[in-house]
């Protein structure tokens, strides 16, 4: 099938983007890489009256590390550019690893980091990585610019804190401070959406023997990325040994409430998630600096 007719505009500033999104006559959708939106248009699951292409706005194309050491990824930055950037590779390897699990290179060359976050498929890799990395989201709207934390950004499947007349202009990732990391997922084929997956970060205490801080976030386990404090508590203060990993896996089994679908039952997802968690924690612990 082909998309229904729509108009297209490629403005040159955020102010112009917002003016177009404020159109009350017709539904306007933001177009960046289009790797999720265009199939939805072609299948006529989405029928917007106007597409606002933000990739020509110069300030949205920025990828940089600021004076405080935080990484800024602008709304028009493509996934492959972010994954291949040396600063991202060194400072936020979890982000690069999550991106490399998205689709295929042919998709990542056009898809954007912020586009995937704003689209918010709960089985997608980037929302989970963003929550694990404590991302902040900068949202421009008619009333000015506001910043939303990752915990409040993801609202429900395909739904975020970004209102229809607002634009996610950039995602900001704080410095990682030597945390170990891992992103593990189970997918039926390489490049598919995850049946279930997990992002883990671990920080060693000054004595290097115990876990000072842990974070575990699951994808494919609910309508939003699922962070499990019980798993993090089971790991914190331990030596990340077999007993601690067992406790963490048990906490994941108890805490996750995924849905059944055609790809996997909830029980299978829980079981797989617990195994992936153990593998991810082991890797993350080895990667602590």
């Amino acid at each position, binding site marked *: 099938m082909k*998309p229904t007719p729509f108009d297209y505009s490629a403005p040159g500033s955020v102010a112009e983007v917002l003016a177009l999104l404020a159109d009350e006559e017709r539904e306007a959708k933001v177009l960046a890489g289009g790797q999720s939106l265009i199939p939805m248009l072609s*299948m006529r699951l989405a029928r917007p009256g106007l597409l606002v292409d933000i990739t020509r706005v110069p300030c949205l194309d920025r990828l940089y590390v600021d004076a405080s050491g935080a990484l800024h990824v602008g709304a028009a930055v493509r996934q492959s550019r972010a994954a291949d950037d040396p600063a991202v590779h060194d400072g936020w390897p979890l982000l690069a690893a999550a991106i490399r699990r998205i689709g*295929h*290179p042919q998709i990542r060359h056009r898809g954007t980091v912020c586009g995937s976050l704003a689209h918010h498929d709960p089985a997608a890799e980037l929302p989970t990585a963003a929550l694990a990395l404590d991302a902040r989201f900068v949202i421009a709207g008619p009333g000015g610019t506001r910043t939303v934390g990752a915990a409040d950004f993801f609202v429900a499947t395909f739904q975020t804190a970004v209102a229809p007349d607002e634009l996610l202009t950039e995602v900001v990732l704080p410095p990682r401070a030597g945390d170990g990391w891992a992103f593990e997922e189970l997918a039926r084929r390489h490049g598919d959406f995850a049946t279930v997956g997990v992002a883990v970060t671990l920080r060693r205490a000054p004595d290097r023997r115990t876990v000072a801080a842990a974070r575990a976030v699951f994808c494919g386990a609910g309508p939003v990325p699922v962070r499990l404090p019980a798993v993090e508590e089971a790991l914190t203060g331990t030596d990340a040994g077999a007993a601690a990993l067992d406790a963490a896996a048990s906490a994941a089994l108890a805490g996750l409430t995924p849905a059944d679908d055609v790809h996997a039952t909830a029980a299978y997802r829980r079981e797989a998630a617990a195994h992936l968690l153990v593998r991810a924690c082991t890797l993350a612990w080895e990667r602590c600096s």
Partner: protein
Amino acid sequence: MTTYLATPDPATATHAAPPPLAEPSGWHEIRLTVNGAPVTAQVESRLLLSDFLRDRLRLTGTHVGCEHGVCGACTVLVDGEPARSCLTLAVQCTGAELRTVEGLAPGDAPLTPVQRAFHECHGMQCGFCTPGFVMTATALTEQPERPDAADVADALSGHLCRCTGYRNIRRAVCQALDERFAGGPAGRGE
């Protein structure tokens, strides 16, 4: 008789008036480069790049399979990087440099090393998916350093061959890489 098609040669393809389609919403003039030739065209916002190449420019070497980004048959190079032309709107390509399979060895020009490798290794069965594979392989050979076996597998995973001719396809890609990066570290990848 009304003709809806542009002239076959993209170098001379200009479209003074949009074709008279039923829903004339959101027409735009786009200027881009296709296989080295400048192209100016009037396109509807919703026209997919794959349809623009095939139906308007008559570059039918770009094949359309699934039309929602799964199969990879429609892969072309956009500013040097492989991308799904069915997941790209023609109107997004203003200012872009596109390359399709027709641009590799136009006319009587000798086949490129990638095309020759696909021929010699029989990296095709029915041939439907071949243009997409060839464009992705071409991009691999144009990288500054030899991609490793994992990168090759990752790139090829973006294409489906329903004849399952992957083994020879991978052999062809490795042959082309061997030729391009003589003495490279990854060998034949077999």
